[in-house]
């Protein structure tokens, strides 16, 4: 862990769930930038800098008038592009009276916002989590505020062996920490994949109660991290010995797609978005309630631990030593990609990374 207190700009980040953005103004800080979100009367999501140009009053504490925001302090009024269209007491609107607007894309139940140079915001770069908006899945989701730097959450999620110790009784069983992993790192596309396939494992309550499986299971955990923001955990649960068919179909297994969006709020706080999508018991509200409560409990266990860790790290001198072992192979790759993305963002480079192949 380095103490780098900065973020990767020129990237897409999840700012909110689509359901959070409506006709009420939503203020949220992303990468240290205060932003106000709302939805126009025609339904388009809008993101503007959350500070009036006049005296810096938060626009999120103001009100909507049609598709414009009227500042709650002196009435400066902004349209959806951030241009000021009215100032009080005079007819001339100063030429510089505008607030920055941010590119937004709604996809897979999320509102993504581009933090960086507008000209480089390419929606095609946004990684996908299609299950969250797929009728073949039922999804529960939430967001917890984390009083810790985002990199601690990345470390946490890239090494699931901590489940055995921090989340015992929920999702952790002895096999998680004891099963070897394979780590794959795609340098060109900047994707990290960490597979842990447990052939014969205890079934944690999270899956026993939701799937109804009794006895031991084949449990696959496949992490797919698209830094900086989107983390996918493809979880496959089946009775011991039940494997996918040769053609790739897998009708006898239960599939849970656990999605995290890791969005820095400030240098020392993070928006911890989480979602759990399943392809079974689709209409069973009891299963939904159980998975929502269980996953939130697990997330809060992480939040508690990482908040402690943040306080410890803030009190340390720079240059302290860490020790990495086998379980950290994927996490080390994530740190390297994040460092590279931070440096690229600082350079303002437009180009995608060049593959390391000569």
């Amino acid at each position, binding site marked *: 862990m380095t103490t780098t207190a900065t973020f990767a700009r020129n990237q897409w980040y999840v700012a909110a769930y689509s359901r959070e953005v409506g006709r009420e103004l939503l203020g949220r800080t992303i990468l240290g930038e205060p932003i106000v979100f709302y939805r126009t009367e025609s339904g388009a999501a809008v993101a503007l800098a959350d500070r009036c140009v006049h005296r810096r009053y938060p626009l999120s504490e103001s009100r909507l008038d049609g598709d414009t925001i009227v500042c709650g302090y002196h009435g400066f009024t902004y349209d959806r592009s951030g241009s000021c269209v009215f100032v009080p007491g005079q007819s001339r609107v100063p030429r510089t009276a505008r607030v920055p607007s941010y590119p937004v894309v709604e996809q897979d139940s999320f509102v993504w916002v581009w933090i960086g140079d507008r000209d480089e915001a390419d929606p095609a770069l946004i990684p996908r989590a299609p299950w969250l908006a797929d009728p073949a899945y039922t999804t529960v989701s939430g967001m917890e505020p984390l009083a810790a730097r985002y990199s601690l959450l990345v470390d946490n999620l890239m090494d699931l062996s901590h489940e055995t110790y921090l989340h015992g009784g929920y999702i952790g069983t002895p096999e998680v920490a004891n099963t070897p992993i394979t780590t794959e790192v795609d340098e060109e596309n900047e994707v990290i994949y960490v597979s842990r396939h447990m052939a014969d494992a205890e079934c944690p309550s999270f899956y026993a109660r939701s799937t109804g499986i009794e006895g031991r299971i084949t449990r696959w955990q496949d992490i797919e991290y698209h830094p900086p923001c989107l983390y996918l955990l493809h979880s496959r649960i089946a009775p011991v010995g039940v494997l996918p068919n040769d053609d790739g179909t897998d009708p006898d297994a239960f599939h849970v797609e656990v999605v995290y969006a890791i969005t820095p709020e400030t240098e020392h706080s993070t928006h911890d978005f989480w979602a759990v999508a399943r392809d079974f018991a689709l209409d069973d509200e009891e299963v939904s309630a159980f998975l929502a409560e269980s996953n939130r409990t697990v997330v809060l266990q992480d939040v508690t631990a990482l908040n402690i860790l943040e306080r410890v790290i803030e009190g340390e001198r720079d240059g302290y030593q860490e020790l990495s072992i*086998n379980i950290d192979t994927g996490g080390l790759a994530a740190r390297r990609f994040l460092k590279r993305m931070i440096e690229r963002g600082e350079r303002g480079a437009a180009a995608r990374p060049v593959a390391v192949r000569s």
Partner: protein
Amino acid sequence: MTDRVPMLRGDSVYRIHWVLGTDRLLGVCHCGAEHESDDPVELWDWLLAHPERHPAGA
């Protein structure tokens, strides 16, 4: 077990396998060169040194 089944495709994928029943890691460069280590930091350093410092026939 299903270890060593590639999930990511592409021309620039590094793979590191935790060797079953041991504490050792086997790194595989996208050029096919392999290196074993019990330290992920050292193993990453080796892999990322590609192609300049891969020992011949590693």
